[in-house]
């Protein structure tokens, strides 16, 4: 295992009680302090992998290492693990449990055995950071989807995990709220947190991530930097994915660029540069 790895999957397999094999002999190192995108078609094993990361599921075979130490599944070790690995679910309604926004944020913190006064200070800060002050007395079920998602993220991040795992963070969100969520994630990454998202959106993953893992039928098809991973069209097809639009345009136009742009602005600059020549 490399030193800059936060979580290492060593030959991990997982089967559900029904017998279906969700993860099969999976080996992958998740780099520390990076923005990681987990891609794959439906049923590829993305959600199972995320539950394995948080210790909700225990592998049937193999082991996971967190900062070089093997996962331990006793109650005390799980508490430490779950304090370090925050998990954001795609459906906010299944994650929100408290009667008010304020109390929702307090739930995880209180379970970390913190003093109520200390918790109140953290909540006050989180409410401001996530623009939830106006909503603090509201019941979560009354909020809009975007606000609910923001609250879920706030509730997880209040616990200050080292690794933040988000399953479809932008699902059911309009582009403005999706951008907001990714801006939060970027800010956290700049503070040194490792962020892992599961998504189907190859364009988002290409633009945002530093490291890509592509899953197919519970196995890692490929992993690495976005430029390398997304260049291999056949591998993407195998995982029911498409090439990101930017790479597609560059390939279609026959533009051979050393530094393939990662976003629309970069593509515009490249095209303008070529047209002016």
């Amino acid at each position, binding site marked *: 295992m490399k030193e800059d790895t936060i979580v290492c999957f060593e030959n991990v397999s997982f089967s559900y009680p029904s017998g279906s094999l969700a993860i099969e002999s999976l080996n992958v190192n998740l780099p520390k302090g990076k923005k990681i995108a987990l891609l794959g078609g439906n049923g590829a094993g993305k959600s199972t992998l995320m539950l394995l990361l948080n210790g909700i599921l225990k592998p049937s075979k193999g082991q996971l290492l967190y900062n070089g130490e093997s996962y331990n599944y006793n109650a005390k070790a799980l508490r430490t693990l779950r304090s370090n690995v925050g998990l954001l679910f795609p459906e906010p309604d299944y994650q929100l449990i408290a009667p*008010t926004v304020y109390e929702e944020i307090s*739930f995880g913190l209180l379970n970390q055995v913190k003093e109520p006064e200390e918790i109140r200070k953290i909540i006050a800060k989180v409410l401001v950071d996530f623009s939830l002050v106006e909503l603090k*007395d509201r*019941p979560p079920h009354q909020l809009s989807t975007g606000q609910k998602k923001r609250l879920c993220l706030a509730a997880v991040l209040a616990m200050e995990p080292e690794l933040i795992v988000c399953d479809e963070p932008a699902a059911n969100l309009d582009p403005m709220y999706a951008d907001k969520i990714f801006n939060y994630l970027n800010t956290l990454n700049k503070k040194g947190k490792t962020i892992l998202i599961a998504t189907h959106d190859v364009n988002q993953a290409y633009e945002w991530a530093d490291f890509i893992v592509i899953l197919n039928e519970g196995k890692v098809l490929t992993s690495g930097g976005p430029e390398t991973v997304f260049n291999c069209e056949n591998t993407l097809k195998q995982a029911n994915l498409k090439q990101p639009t930017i790479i597609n345009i560059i390939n279609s136009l026959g533009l051979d660029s050393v530094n393939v742009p990662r976003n629309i602005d970069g593509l515009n600059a490249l095209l303008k540069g070529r047209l002016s020549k």
Partner: protein
Amino acid sequence: MLIESVYNYKHRLVDAHFLVKIVYVLPAFVLVLISENTAFHGFAFCLIFIACKYIAKVPIFHLLKLFSVPFLFIFIGCFTLLFSFDKIHGIGILDDSYFLGIAIFTKSMALISVMYFFLLTHTISEISKYMYACKVPSLFIELFVLTYKFIYLLSDTAKSMQIAQKCRMGDQQGYLNTVRNYGLLFSMVFRHAMLQTEQLEIAMSARLGSNNFVFVQEKHAYSFMNLLAPILFVLLLITALLLL
């Protein structure tokens, strides 16, 4: 109409300590309950109705709608109390039953208004706080909070399923089929509830939760000055009780 659909989260007591809020409600409730004075009940109803408008900041139209449901039930109940029947005189209204009907009607409406004021100025968390203070077993309080959450989850699920069923003309296949379809709908809603519970448990575990629904509430400071308004409110009620 649900209380929550008219609840104003910017009411005047939003930053008040829960003990300050209860000074408005508890004495009013006790005074209305022990008094047999219909004029006082009428006064209490009017005063609390005004409080619902200006303290809970609920528009009059919504308040009227809110009061209309219990009003209807209480009115029908009390109206039947007015009539007496015997073999000699037949059906008639006696003085006693007339006064009894009026007394029960005014008392009930006054109590309902106190209850509405309580619900329109308290969140579920504050109500659960009172329950903890009254030493209600935590299991019941958790059940109370969970029921509150699941009512909305289930009603949303049921609404979406009903729309999906209507889109496939599930409600236009004759009476028997409609009944059968609604039966299936309810069974699906409950199955969905089970799935949601499972998901909720996973989400709670991910945030280090066990099966305890324990939260931290915001702290509101209180001083004697904060108590002035509710004390004046109660004094007004006591004066009315003594004078009327």
